[in-house]
């Protein structure tokens, strides 16, 4: 018998002893993304994040523009095939850069470092 210790939290109605890992709400075996900071862009001016490392991130873009490269509404991360997945947001160990702005962008920065 393996000497395995940890905590699992199951969804309502599921037995944590038999549930697949993907069906658990949380398990101490798996890391979860933890949000360090959320930045709001209404211009393309870079913003210092002050974290001291290169943070993993996702972002959401809102635009009112409708053309060959934009779709009105909210999109997650770089816009898709029509827009060619051209970079919108990038990060280094000091700043978050916004290379293009529709109406506004929310950038969610995580505890995880990309350059480790």
């Amino acid at each position, binding site marked *: 018998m393996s000497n395995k210790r940890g905590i699992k939290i199951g969804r309502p109605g599921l037995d944590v002893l038999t549930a697949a890992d993907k069906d658990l709400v949380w398990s101490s075996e798996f890391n*979860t*993304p933890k949000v360090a900071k959320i930045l709001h862009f209404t211009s393309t001016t870079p913003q210092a994040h002050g974290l001291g490392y290169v943070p*993993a991130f*996702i972002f959401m873009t809102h635009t009112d523009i409708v053309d060959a490269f934009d779709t009105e509404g909210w999109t997650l991360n770089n816009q898709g095939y029509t827009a060619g997945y051209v*970079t919108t947001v990038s990060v280094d160990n000091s700043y978050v850069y916004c290379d293009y702005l529709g109406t506004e962008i929310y950038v969610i920065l995580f505890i*995880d470092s990309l350059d480790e």
Partner: protein
Amino acid sequence: MANEFGIKITLPNKSENSSDPNDFTLHSSYNMWKVSSTGSGSVSVAGDGTESDVTITHNLGYNPYFIVYAKDRTTGRWHIGPVRFPRNDGTVIERVCVGFTYTDVNTITLSFYRTFDSIFAGNPTETVDYKYYLFLEAELAPWTS
């Protein structure tokens, strides 16, 4: 009274009896993303447009949610994929494209190649650093309005 079981952890100064899920850092009625694995590396991208692939074998048996980041060594900036970088501002043209494909339910293929091959043909090989996060959550759809 409902026969209710579960675990809740509240944010500071919030009540455990709150009905707002945003008041909790953990609530057993709501799933949390779980990182199945991470990985990183560097890829040499040929100047002539030849694609370089990296195969990630996860053996989950389904298509998991997946995020990849790539570093432009010229600027030191990290971008989230799928992506072409740097952004074309009229003077700079995108050099590198990074994408990924669910090859099958057990593998994901990262692809790296030069864009605008006719312009960059004959350019030196470029090294691109990458890092990926593979989640246990399956086949989540993109968020759209």
